[in-house]
C-alpha cells in the first residue's frame, strides 16, 4: 500500500518509525483538545521540538491513522484501543510524558459516540484546550484551507495542502462553520469540565500575539522546565493575510445587507 503522506513531509515523518521511542512508563499524559485553525499544529510542533513533551501529533486524523496503522499493523483492522496501546508504548518520551492531539471532529469520527469520546478524554491526566476566540477568522481560515489553500507551511516552506479547489467564502458557508465551531467549543468545554482534569486554555490569539509566554505557560502546566520555551521559535509560518481580512470584512458587511453577497440564480 502506498504512503498516505508524501515521503519527506512533516506528517510522514511524524507517522514514521523515526518518531517511535523506546517503551517507557508514562508518568504524565496530556491531551491537546482542539479544533481546526486554532494554532494547535504550531503548539504541538513546538512541544515535539522540546524533546520532553511526548510526540503530540494529530493521531486521529484519518490520514494519519491510515499511514501509521499500515506501517505497524498491516494485517489487523484498525480500532482505537490497540492503536492507543501502540501510541502510549512508542510515543512517550524518555521522561515519561505522553502527549496526544485531537480535533473534536476527529475524536467524534474515531469513537462514533459522545460517551466514548468522554471516556477517551478522561484517560488523560491534563488537558490543553486549543481554541480560537475569533470564530469568524477561524471560519475564514478553515474555508481557505479547505479550498485549495494550505493547512500549514513550515519554516522550511514545506506545505501541507488541502485538496485543490476554490475557497468558498460565501457568508452562509462561513456562518455554518462558525455555528459548528461554537457548538464544538461548547461540547468540548462540557466534556473537559465533566472529566474533572486540570485544564489549560490556549487560545490562538495568545499563541499568535505572545508565542514564548504562552509556551512557558504550557511548560508550567505540564511540569516541564519553563526555560524550554525560551529557545522556541514558531515552527510554522502565519497563513493569515489580506485575503483573510478582506473576507472577514465582506462577511460582516453582508450580514447586514445580503444583496452584497447575492448569488446569481
Amino acid at each position, binding site marked *: 500500500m502506498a504512503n498516505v503522506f508524501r515521503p519527506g513531509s512533516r506528517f510522514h515523518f511524524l507517522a514514521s518509525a523515526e518518531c517511535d521511542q523506546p517503551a517507557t512508563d508514562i508518568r504524565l499524559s496530556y491531551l491537546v483538545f482542539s479544533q481546526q485553525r486554532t494554532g494547535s499544529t504550531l503548539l504541538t510542533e513546538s512541544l515535539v521540538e522540546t524533546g520532553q513533551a511526548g510526540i503530540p501529533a494529530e493521531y486521529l486524523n484519518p490520514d494519519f491513522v491510515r499511514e501509521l496503522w499500515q506501517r505497524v499493523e498491516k494485517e489487523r483492522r484498525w480500532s482505537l484501543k490497540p492503536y492507543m496501546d501502540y501510541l502510549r508504548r512508542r510515543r512517550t518520551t524518555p521522561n515519561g510524558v505522553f502527549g496526544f492531539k485531537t480535533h473534536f471532529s476527529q475524536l467524534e469520527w474515531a469513537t462514533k459516540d459522545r460517551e466514548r469520546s468522554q471516556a477517551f478524554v478522561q484517560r488523560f491526566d491534563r488537558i490543553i484546550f486549543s481554541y480560537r476566540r475569533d470564530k469568524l477568522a477561524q471560519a475564514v481560515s478553515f474555508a481557505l484551507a479547505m479550498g485549495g489553500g494550505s493547512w500549514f507551511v513550515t519554516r522550511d516552506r514545506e506545505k501541507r495542502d488541502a485538496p485543490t479547489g476554490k475557497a468558498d467564502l460565501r*457568508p452562509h458557508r462561513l*456562518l455554518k462553520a462558525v455555528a459548528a465551531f461554537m457548538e464544538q467549543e461548547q461540547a468540548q468545554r462540557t466534556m473537559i469540565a465533566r472529566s474533572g482534569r486540570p485544564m489549560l486554555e490556549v487560545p490562538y490569539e495568545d499563541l499568535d500575539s505572545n508565542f514564548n509566554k504562552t509556551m512557558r505557560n504550557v511548560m508550567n502546566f505540564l511540569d516541564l522546565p519553563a526555560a524550554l520555551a525560551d529557545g522556541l521559535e514558531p515552527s510554522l509560518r502565519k497563513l493569515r493575510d489580506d485575503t483573510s481580512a478582506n473576507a472577514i470584512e465582506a462577511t460582516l458587511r453582508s450580514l447586514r445587507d445580503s444583496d452584497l453577497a447575492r448569488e446569481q*440564480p
Partner: protein
Amino acid sequence: MNLPRANPATVARIRETMSSALDWPATPIRMRYLLLSQARTGGTFLCEALSRSGMAGVPSEYLNPAAIAAMAKRLGASGGIALPQLMQELEGRRTTSNGVFGLHLHLEQLRKPLETEERILRWLERFDRIILLVRRNKLAQAVSLDRALQTKAWFQTADLRENSTAPSLVVRPATLAAHIMRLFEQETLMRRSVAALGRPALEIDYESLDSDFASLWSRVAEFLDLGPIPVASVMPDLERMRDASNDVMAERFIAILRDSDLARDPAFLRVAPTDKGERNR
C-alpha cells in the same frame, strides 16, 4: 427552520384567519399570485394590507402547519387534509370577488408535502405572478427570528403591547449563526425558484416596507393591477416588534463572533428587558 411554537395570541389569530369570517363567496379565479417570503420579513404585515384592500384575495400563510390544522378542524377532517383538497377549499373561500387569489408561502412549508425541489417547482407553476419578499439585513432577521422563538410571540398589536411585559432575552450565538446560514440558503433557493418559474415577479424587501410602506404599497398594487388604493385604507393593525433589545442582541452576536470568550459570561448573554417607552411605533 424551527416550526414556530405559538402563544395564545398567535393561536387565536390563526383560528381567526382560518374562520368563516374571512371567507368570500365562491368566484372563478382569474389571477393567482404568490407572496414568497421568509420568516421575519414583514410578510404578515403585507398580507394584512392586501386583505384589507378587498381586491387581492385574502393572502395568508395557509401552508403553515398550524393553519392547516385549523382548516382541517374547521372542515371536520380529523385525519388531516391533503394539499390538493386544502388548496381547493382555500381557492373556493378566499378568492375576492374580482377573481384574485393570493397565497403567502415560505418555501420550506412545501418541503414536507412535496419533498423535492422539482415537485415544488411544478406545484408553484399554478401562480401567475410572484412577489418575492426578502430582508437584506440577515443579522436583524435572525435576531428577530430567535426573539420570536424565545418569546413565542410572532406578531404584535397595540392591545398585545399594552398587556405584555418586555421580554427577557438571551443571545444564543450558535443558534443565531445557524439561523443566518439558513436564511441565506433559503433566499438563494427562493431566487432560484422564481427565476426557474419565469413568471412576472416583483422583488421587494423588508427594509423598504419598514421605512416607506406607502411607496412599497403603490408598487405592489400596481404589480397586481389593483388600481389606486390609498395606503391609509389598508394599514394593518400590526406593530413593529423590533426594539432596543434587538439591537443589543445583534451587537453582542457580532462581538461574540470576534471573541467567543464573551459568550462565557452569562451576564453578557442576558439581554435585560427594555422599557416599553423605548419601543417604536
